[in-house]
């Protein structure tokens, strides 16, 4: 019998799990990707070494940049550390601060982070960073309707918009996970996540190829600890999105049902395993399809939107 952990500690553990594990998940994806391309690839811990190196370096700001430029990475990282409080990372039951915000609240905080980074990119005065920021905001507006309709599906299925409630509904019956609305919403969310984490359809997430640069272009002018925070932030965002997909939609199993230390520890391991599996799937998809031209992104967004809208339609007719 393992002792019960106090609730605040579990809450802190949720945040720490995401913060500490996020670079590792990126490392696993980079490794899988390299293997798929026939390269040996970097070691899994490479992102941690990169962060450590950047944190030791000097921070520089372009001439004329204001305090916004330096404050934005901190603000963005703070946003990414707030979201894990709101979503079921480790437990099936809501933690004390877990009902502070619903799915929309989490979405707002994620877009606030993206907004801060975009503002800093504009402040830098560099054309590349500005291009990245402008593209990121434009395409975010295009993918937003799909996200909204996914949230509508959640709301219709559970009568709430709390991520904990949907996860509980999915766990409650095996029929629910095969329900067309649920499958469609999960597929639409997966497509949005592919776009948001800089995979297909257009972006090359590692390269410095300007045609496909959206997210990667924005921290162009940052350096040292600020760049480290931005890189860490984007890997945290990736893990947060995977967690929402896995623990709310696709596989909400392996979460701790009680506050016991053993159950919570198992939940951490389960989450990391699931995230690594999801990352592998993403890497395989990313490497099996050709990138689209930049302005073909509307087709990709239209497909995600179609899936989410059909999900709402089938629910509306009572098909589940």
């Amino acid at each position: 019998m393992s002792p019960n952990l106090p609730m605040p500690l579990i809450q802190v553990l949720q945040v720490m799990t995401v913060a500490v594990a996020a670079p590792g998940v990126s490392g696993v994806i980079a490794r899988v990707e390299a293997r798929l391309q026939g390269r040996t690839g970097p070691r899994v811990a490479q992102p941690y070494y990169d962060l450590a190196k950047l944190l030791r370096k000097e921070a520089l700001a372009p001439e004329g940049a204001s305090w916004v430029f330096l404050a934005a990475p901190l603000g963005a990282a703070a946003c990414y550390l707030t979201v894990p409080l709101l979503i079921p990372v480790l437990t099936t039951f809501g933690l004390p601060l877990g009902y502070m915000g619903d799915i929309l609240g989490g979405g707002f905080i994620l877009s606030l982070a993206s907004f801060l980074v975009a503002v800093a990119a504009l402040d830098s005065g560099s054309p590349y960073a500005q291009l990245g920021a402008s593209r990121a905001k434009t395409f975010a507006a295009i993918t937003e309707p799909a996200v909204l309709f996914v949230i509508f599906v959640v709301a219709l299925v559970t009568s709430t918009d709390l991520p904990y409630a949907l996860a509980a509904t999915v766990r409650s019956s095996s029929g629910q996970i095969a329900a067309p609305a649920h499958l469609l919403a999960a597929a639409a969310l997966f497509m949005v996540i592919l776009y948001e984490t800089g995979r297909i359809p257009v972006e090359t997430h590692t390269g410095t190829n300007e045609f496909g640069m959206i997210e990667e272009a924005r921290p162009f002018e940052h350096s040292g600890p600020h760049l480290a925070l931005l890189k860490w932030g984007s890997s945290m965002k990736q893990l947060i999105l995977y967690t929402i997909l896995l623990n709310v939609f696709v596989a909400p199993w392996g979460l701790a049902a009680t506050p016991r230390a053993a159950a919570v520890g198992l939940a951490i391991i389960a989450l990391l395993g699931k995230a690594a599996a999801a990352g592998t799937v993403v890497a395989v998809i990313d490497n099996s399809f050709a990138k689209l031209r930049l302005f073909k992104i509307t087709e990709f967004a239209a497909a995600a939107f179609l899936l989410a809208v059909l999900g709402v339609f089938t629910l509306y007719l009572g098909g589940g």
Partner: protein
Amino acid sequence: MSAVAAPSVYSGGASVIAVGVLLAEFGMFRQALLRDQVRLYAAQSGLISALAVLVAAARQLPELYVLAALSAGLKVVIVPIVLRRLLRGLGHGGDGAQQDQAAHGWTEIAGSGSLSLASTILLAIAVAAFGFFSVGALRIASPVLPPTALAISVSVALVAFVLMIMRRDVASQAIGFLSLENGISLAALVVAAGMPLILEVAFLFDLLVAVVVFELLIRLHHGRAESLSTADLTSLRG
């Protein structure tokens, strides 16, 4: 609206297959190569056959297995083969490269839409919504009728019309017509699964006649216009 209960296995499975048929219909807007368009049609027909097997198993109608086999043989194997043979035959008019392309089924039909792809999809979503909600307004409820499948079959038929109207190439228009028949089969399977086998087989042979007619039309059009596009037919308007 109260929380929605999870559907039963039969009704959930039927709805998933019906959604798959509708998604395949939407996928036809995107296909750029004739070969892929034909493949997508074969996949959609395969889904219909799978639905026939599901209905047969769930409602103990053994004659539906025969129908599933017949429909799979005809729509998944024979019609695609006929269409592919037709495509190979179309290479004769053009130069060497064109013949080569046709022989491999690489005939390009992309860009034949009159609107951009995303706008077409949005239009088709609106049309599909009309189909959905008009059937929903009828409030047809029955313990043996999967609630969404009937609405989706109407949407499939309507979206097939959008496909035929928006794409300007003969091949997509023919495939649109054939997939319209898939939508009607879907409705027949979920509403009147017990419909006598002979009637359904007659429908399938009707389809075969349609394929032969389309083959003639496509050959005739290609012989005159040396392309699959119907854009130059608009100049014949009075």
